[in-house]
């Protein structure tokens, strides 16, 4: 694709020790479009950091090719590679600011060896600090700042060379939820205002839901699922993906709680425990009241959650439907016709789940 700014082809990274070999990334292909916010999600050790460090060749792949900004990075010599890296900003979980420099000097750092006058350099650094909302902190030292502020400085620093790509490796993992949100909002704003393509590594679906358009799910060094966030979120194919989704909608937690309720094990013939998920318009329709009105099926809602994903609302519910076997069947088809995905939850399965936890 002409528009893709990052193209990783058949990337494998193998770490060799004296005794053992570890394949951290295995045959990964990844294309990211210019201007996208692309999420990479996976549990610790999945190989996310190793994979994104291949993008700026901080990690040389054992196999495969890396193209960024129309350049084959593996073909470049050291000094050309350094030039290319300037167009790939990176931010980290632990900020990695220089303690001995002020906030302003930290942001200036990437420009120190550029042919730019000191006053231009400082002007630029000040503009960037303004962009991330830290203009008044230019003379502070990193140790005087909060985590969120440090990450803002790191973002300003990463933008100093006007990069085309910004890689964020768990940049919000050390921050509280509120600060995480504000950093994610800032990233989205930078994506819209500067057009910078963002690659966002995380182990939290929440971050992906908040700003990403596309997502890849990693497990054991491989991408096991990928696509637009809304579709991956509503129709997860792999168990791991489903796990991330359920954790982020709190469905998992809710099911565990419901499983502990003694009433649930006493569901009779005429009752069904189901989870419903729906996308877009259908979430706004009052399908539940329709069930009661048209079919005389009563829905006892145990849990409900609506998310905004990439601008689309996605809802999840857990409910007990009560009716006759016949009307229950009709209720399920009515819901399905309206684009609601139904999964029946067996109370026996619930118990097992709980037992396993």
């Amino acid at each position: 694709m002409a528009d893709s700014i990052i193209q990783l082809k058949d990337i494998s990274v193998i770490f060799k020790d004296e005794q053992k070999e570890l394949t951290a990334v295995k045959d990964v292909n990844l294309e990211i479009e210019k201007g996208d916010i692309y999420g990479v999600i996976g549990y610790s050790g999945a190989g996310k950091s190793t994979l994104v460090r291949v993008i700026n060749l901080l990690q040389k792949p054992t196999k495969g090719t890396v193209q960024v900004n129309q350049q084959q990075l593996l073909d470049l010599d050291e000094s050309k590679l350094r030039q290319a890296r300037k167009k790939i900003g990176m931010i980290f979980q632990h900020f990695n600011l220089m303690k001995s420099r002020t906030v302003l000097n930290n942001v200036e750092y990437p420009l120190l060896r550029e042919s730019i006058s000191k006053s231009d350099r400082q002007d630029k650094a000040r503009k960037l600090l303004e962009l991330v909302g830290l203009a008044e902190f230019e003379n502070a030292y990193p140790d005087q700042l909060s985590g969120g502020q440090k990450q803002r400085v790191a973002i300003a620093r990463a933008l100093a060379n006007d990069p085309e790509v910004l890689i964020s490796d768990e940049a919000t993992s050390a921050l509280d939820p509120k600060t995480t949100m504000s950093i994610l909002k800032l990233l989205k704003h930078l994506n819209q205002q500067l057009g910078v393509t963002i690659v966002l590594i995380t182990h939290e679906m929440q971050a992906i839901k908040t700003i990403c358009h596309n997502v890849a799910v990693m497990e054991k060094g491989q991408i096991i699922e990928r696509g637009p966030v809304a579709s991956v979120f509503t129709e997860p194919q792999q168990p791991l993906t489903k796990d991330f989704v359920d954790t982020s909608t709190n469905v998992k937690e809710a099911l565990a709680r419901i499983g502990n309720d003694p009433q649930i094990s006493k569901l009779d013939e005429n009752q069904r425990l189901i989870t419903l998920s729906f996308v877009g318009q259908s979430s706004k329709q009052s399908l539940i009241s329709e069930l009661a009105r048209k079919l005389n099926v009563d829905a006892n809602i145990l849990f409900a959650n609506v998310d905004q994903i990439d601008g689309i609302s996605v809802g999840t519910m857990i409910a007990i439907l009560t009716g006759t076997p016949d009307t229950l069947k009709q209720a399920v088809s009515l819901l399905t016709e309206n684009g609601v995905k139904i999964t029946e939850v067996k109370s026996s399965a619930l118990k097992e789940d709980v037992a396993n936890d």
Partner: protein
Amino acid sequence: MINLLPNVIHMKDQFITATWETIYMTFLSAIIAGVIGLALGVLLVVSQKHGILEDSIIYSFTDKTVNVLRSIPFIILLAVIAPLTNYIVGTTIGTTAALVPLIFGIFPFYARQVQNALLEIDPGVVEAAQSMGSSPIGIIFSVYLREGLPDIIRASTFTVISLVSLTTVAGAIGAGGLGDVAISIGYARFEGDVTVVAMLIILVLIFAIQIIGDRLAKHFEQF
């Protein structure tokens, strides 16, 4: 005064000369060994595994050399190195001749101190600099030596203090300085007051070095 310091009183000039000799030996060897040790300390850190200029051959060679040199007791080093001293300086006696063993005695020690100081720097900061396209030289000067400066100053203070005591050992075999005075006059002629005064002057020197070092380290350590 005469009762308290019966011998020192007649040796004022000798003490002044000896003090200057000690300062001369300490600082000249500190500067030369400092440059060598700093370079080797940096070399050890950048060439180590996952270092910015990883090179296992250079690393293990440097590492072993430093280890071996550090293991030689200074008094033996003085003797072993005498031919080299003679070759470089033309004599093995006197303060200038003492510089050679002092430098060899201290630079491996200092290299380790510098290495340890630099290892304290968060590798994440180095990685960030790499991701911004900094060159290895840029990283050495703008990250390692800059971020590590307070620790390097502390290590240097410690090293210079160790050097002062090495100069006294060298003094015992004819290098001059306060050690020479304390041993060849104070100790050999049973003039106890001479030994004590030599020791006091050395202590004053060491305290002065410590205070200057602490001030400098504080100054460069913003927080």
